[in-house]
């Protein structure tokens, strides 16, 4: 999916960040950097349609209305004690537009395929609240992929995970980007990883910058050499 932000101002009543302009083409991987309070989460909530922009607009493939976006929130922000199986959580990604008490065969098949590709098929009957952080994050990623496979928005995907689970998470995102050609927006604190995987960087720290990765690296190098 193509995504355009035009003169976007975001915030709750008071703007946190203003004049955000950038365009992403299908298959771009944007990493949003910046300290706490610079509006990273507010930006993705606005892109997701959870919040309204204060000014400007977001266009999805040139349209104002988005229908579905795959969204992976931080697992710590999602209900921890929710009584549901992994299968139910994953299926819920595609069921929001489906009415009735039962799941269709097609939906079950799709969820199974996605769970298999993320190596969580054997957890299907397990209770969500008994999973580890890394497993939960994979379950939530599977749910996101059930909702959409064009634009994926990820909020600090490795927060609260151990080193091994972090690596697995990044590997999965890289695979989705390279093999499925998904457009990905990821919030991260981790500049190193961002530079490893992203094609574009949006630095929310003032003065806000939207650059391709190569330009961003060149900029940083110039900054460092000017210190010397």
């Amino acid at each position, binding site marked *: 999916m193509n995504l355009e932000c035009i003169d976007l101002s975001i915030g709750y009543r008071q703007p946190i960040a203003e004049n955000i302009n950038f365009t992403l083409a299908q298959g771009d991987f944007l990493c949003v950097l910046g300290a706490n309070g610079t509006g990273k989460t507010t930006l993705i909530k606005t892109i997701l349609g*959870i919040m309204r922009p204060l000014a400007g607009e977001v266009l999805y493939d040139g349209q104002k209305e988005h229908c*579905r976006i795959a969204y992976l929130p931080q697992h710590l922000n999602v209900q921890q004690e*929710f009584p549901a199986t992994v299968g139910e959580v994953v299926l819920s990604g595609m069921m929001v537009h489906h*009415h009735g*008490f039962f799941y269709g065969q097609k939906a079950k098949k799709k969820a199974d395929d996605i769970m298999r590709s993320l190596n969580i098929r054997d957890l299907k009957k397990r*209770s969500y609240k008994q999973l580890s952080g890394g497993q939960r994050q994979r379950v939530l990623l599977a749910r996101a992929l059930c909702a959409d496979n064009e634009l994926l928005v990820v909020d600090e995907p490795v927060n609260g995970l151990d080193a091994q689970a972090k690596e697995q998470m990044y590997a999965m995102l890289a695979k989705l980007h390279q093999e499925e050609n998904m457009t990905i927006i990821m919030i991260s604190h981790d500049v190193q990883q961002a530079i490893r995987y992203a094609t574009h960087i949006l630095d929310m720290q003032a003065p806000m910058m939207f650059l391709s990765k190569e330009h961003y690296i060149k900029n940083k190098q110039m900054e460092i050499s000017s210190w010397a």
Partner: protein
Amino acid sequence: MGVIWDKLLYYLQYPFVIYALIVGVLISLVASLLGVTLVIKKYSLLGDGLSHVAFGAMAIAAILHFSDELPFTIVVTIISAIFILKKGNNAQLSGDALVAMFSVGSLALGYLGLSLFSTSSNISGDVCTTLFGSTSILTLTLTDVVISVVCSLLIILIYLINYHQFFALSFDDEHAKASGMNTDRYNLILAVITAVVIVLAMNLVGSLLISALIVFPALSAMRVCTSFRSVTIAASLLSMLCAFSGIVISILAGTPVGPTIVAADMFVYVLVCLWNGGKR
């Protein structure tokens, strides 16, 4: 045992007992269905607050001498539910404080109104009936029965049709919104049916005890079941079982209906905790 059985069969000849059983079981069913979502969304107290609003509304209806208090009470409670939900999302006044204000405010005004304007000779008896239910489930008019049954069936239908939406709303409403679901609409539906369930349940257990019907079956089911679907089904079954046995026991033992049903719900919860604790 035979004596009890004879006594039960004797009571079952009366239509009011049959009415009470049908309405009681249905209302408990819908209360527990909603309960699962309300408990998970941490809205348990919304039910409690609305039940006090319903008490105030019923008091006004009584003062104004409405022939049937139910429709008026339902409308007032629905409006309050929508108001609390809309304003509760507003940062100036938290939902929690708003519920508290509505709840005690309408309780006070309701009792004040009744004691100033009521023509009844036994105000405290009337108030006690509204708060604790006592025998009002056994004195239902045919209109009350029809309204309760139709509303309950409608709510069950709405719940089943929108089952996946309620799941998404309870689990992660931000994700649901990002997937294109109109979460405001479903929150509204939730508020409206909560209001209706509460007014209906007033006849059964009285306004002070309604939250018990909402929370106990859901909490019991959540202790033993892993999947959301099994929680929903188990909560409904437990709730219907407790309502049925509560009504039967209260008829046989002459105890007040509402507290007996709630005691049955608590008993099941304790049993489930013991069983579950023993397993671990």
